[in-house]
C-alpha cells in the first residue's frame, strides 16, 4: 500500500514535466510531418511537370527524417536524466526531502521500487503515446498523399520493422517487447545504483562519482568480457541462455547494491 501511495506522490510530482515532454514531442513530430507532406508534394508536382514522376514515397522516409529521430532522442535523453534526477532532486535544495523519505516508518526499498515504478510507468506511457501518435501520423500521411494522388510504397508494419530505432521499440513479437522493456529496466537499475553509491560516499571522498561509476562499469563489463571469452565456445541457443542469465545477474546485482547502499550506507 505504501508503495502505491509513494508512487502516486511521485507521479503527481512528475505530471507537469511529463506533460510538457509529451506536448513537445507531439509538436515536433506533427509539425515536421506537416512540413514533410508540404515539401514532398511540391517536389512531386515539380517532377510531374517535368514528366518524370516515377517516384514513390514511404512512411519510412518520414520516420528517417532528422526531426523525427531527434524527437525520439529527446525522449530518451529526458528519461535518462530524470532517472538520475528522481533521486538527486530529493537531496537538493532548501528542503531536503530525502530526510523525510528515509525516516518514514517503512522499508527503504519501498522508496526504491516506487521510484523505479514511476520511471517505468513514464517510459511505458511514452511508448504508448508514441504508438498512438505513429498510427495517427500514418493516417495523416496516407490520406494526404492519396488525396494528392501521389503513389506510396510500403506498409505501416514495414516502415516500423525497417526503422533502426522503432524496430527495437515496437518489435513484431510481444515477448521481445517485454524483453526489451526488461533491458530498459536494467538500464534504470544501473542508474539508480550509481546514484545511491555516489550519495553514500559523497561526504567521505570527492571521488565518489568516479568510484561509483567504476563499480558499475566493472559489473557491466565482466559479463561482456566473459562473452568475448565464451563466444567461440557457445552456439546460438546457448548464447541466448547466456544473455538471459547475464540480464538476470545484472538486475539482481544492481537491486542488491541499491538495497545495500540505500539501507545501510546512504548519507544525507
Amino acid at each position, binding site marked *: 500500500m505504501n508503495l502505491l501511495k509513494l508512487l502516486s506522490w511521485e507521479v503527481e510530482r512528475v505530471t507537469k514535466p511529463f506533460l510538457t515532454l509529451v506536448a513537445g514531442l507531439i509538436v515536433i513530430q506533427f509539425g515536421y510531418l506537416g512540413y514533410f507532406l508540404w515539401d514532398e508534394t511540391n517536389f512531386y508536382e515539380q517532377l510531374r511537370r517535368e514528366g518524370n514522376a516515377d517516384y514513390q514515397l514511404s512512411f519510412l522516409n518520414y520516420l528517417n527524417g532528422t526531426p523525427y529521430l531527434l524527437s525520439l532522442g529527446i525522449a530518451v535523453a529526458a528519461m535518462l536524466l530524470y532517472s538520475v534526477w528522481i533521486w538527486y532532486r530529493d537531496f537538493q535544495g532548501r528542503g*531536503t526531502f530525502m530526510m523525510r523519505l*528515509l525516516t518514514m516508518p517503512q522499508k527503504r526499498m519501498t522508496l526504491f521500487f516506487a521510484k523505479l515504478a514511476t520511471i517505468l510507468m513514464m517510459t511505458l506511457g511514452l511508448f504508448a503515446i508514441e504508438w498512438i501518435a505513429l498510427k495517427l501520423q500514418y493516417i495523416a500521411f496516407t490520406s494526404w498523399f492519396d488525396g494528392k494522388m501521389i503513389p506510396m510504397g510500403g506498409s505501416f508494419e514495414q516502415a516500423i520493422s525497417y526503422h533502426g530505432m522503432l524496430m527495437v521499440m515496437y518489435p513484431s513479437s510481444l515477448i521481445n517487447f517485454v524483453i526489451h522493456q526488461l533491458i530498459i529496466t536494467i538500464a534504470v537499475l544501473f542508474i539508480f545504483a550509481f546514484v545511491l553509491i555516489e550519495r553514500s560516499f559523497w*561526504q*567521505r*571522498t570527492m571521488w565518489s562519482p568516479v568510484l561509483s561509476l567504476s563499480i558499475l562499469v566493472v559489473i557491466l563489463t565482466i559479463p561482456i568480457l566473459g562473452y568475448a571469452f565464451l563466444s567461440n565456445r557457445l552456439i546460438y541457443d546457448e548464447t541466448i541462455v547466456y544473455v538471459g542469465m547475464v540480464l538476470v545477474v545484472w538486475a539482481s546485482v544492481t537491486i542488491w547494491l541499491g538495497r545495500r547502499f540505500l539501507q545501510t550506507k546512504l548519507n544525507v
Partner: protein
Amino acid sequence: MIEVLGVKKRYRRKQVIEDVSFTANKGEITCLIGLNGTGKSTLLKGIMGLTPFDKGSVLIDGKPIDLNRVAFVADHAMFPIHFTIEQCEAFMKDFYPTFDSALFARLVEDFKLFPEDKLSELSKGTLAKANLALGIAQDPDYLLLDEPFSGIDVFSKEQIVELFSSEIMESRGVLITTHEIEDIEYLIDKAVMLNNGRIVREFDVEDVRFIHGKSIVDVMREEYGA
C-alpha cells in the same frame, strides 16, 4: 530511553564524532550543547540513520530504532519547498499511521499557521513552527530537534518555548541540539556538552544549578573557555 553507545563517524580525514555514548530519558529534555561544527547535527542524523555511524549503536528502550516512535525535526523543511503546509500534512497522513490530525490542527491554530501557504514563502520562524507541528503530530515517544531556534524571531521562539512547557510535551523524551542555550536553559533536564566530536561533560542541570549554583552558560564558559 535513547541509548547512544560508542558511536564514531568520520568525514574524509576528519573524525567528526569520536566514541560518543550518552542517554536521553523519556519525559525529559536532553540538550546536546556545543559550538558550531562540534558534531551535534551529525549525532542526531546518525541516530535517525541519515548518516550511518561507522561504529557503535543506538537503542530506543533497549531495541533498535522504531521510526513510528521517534520523530526528527530538522532546521529546514524536509519537504519539497513548493509543497504547501496542507500538502505536507496529507503526505504525513499517508505514511505515518500514528499521525494525529487533531493535534496537528491544534498546533496550526496555536502557531497561527496558514495551511495553504507554501513552504518556500514561510519565514524562518514560521517554517520552524510548521516543522515542529508536523513532528509533534506524529505523536512520537521521542522527539529529536535539530537547532529549532537558530535564526528565528523572538515571538516564534516564545511560542516554541511555551509549547515545550505544555502538557503536549509532558510524557515525551526530547533530544535537542542548540548553540543558543539561553532561550531554553530553564526547560532542560540534562545537558551533554560536546567539543571536537567528544563528550566533555554530561550533567543534570538541576544539580548544577542548585548544588553548584551555576547556569549552563557558566559551565559552557568553563568548558569552551569563551
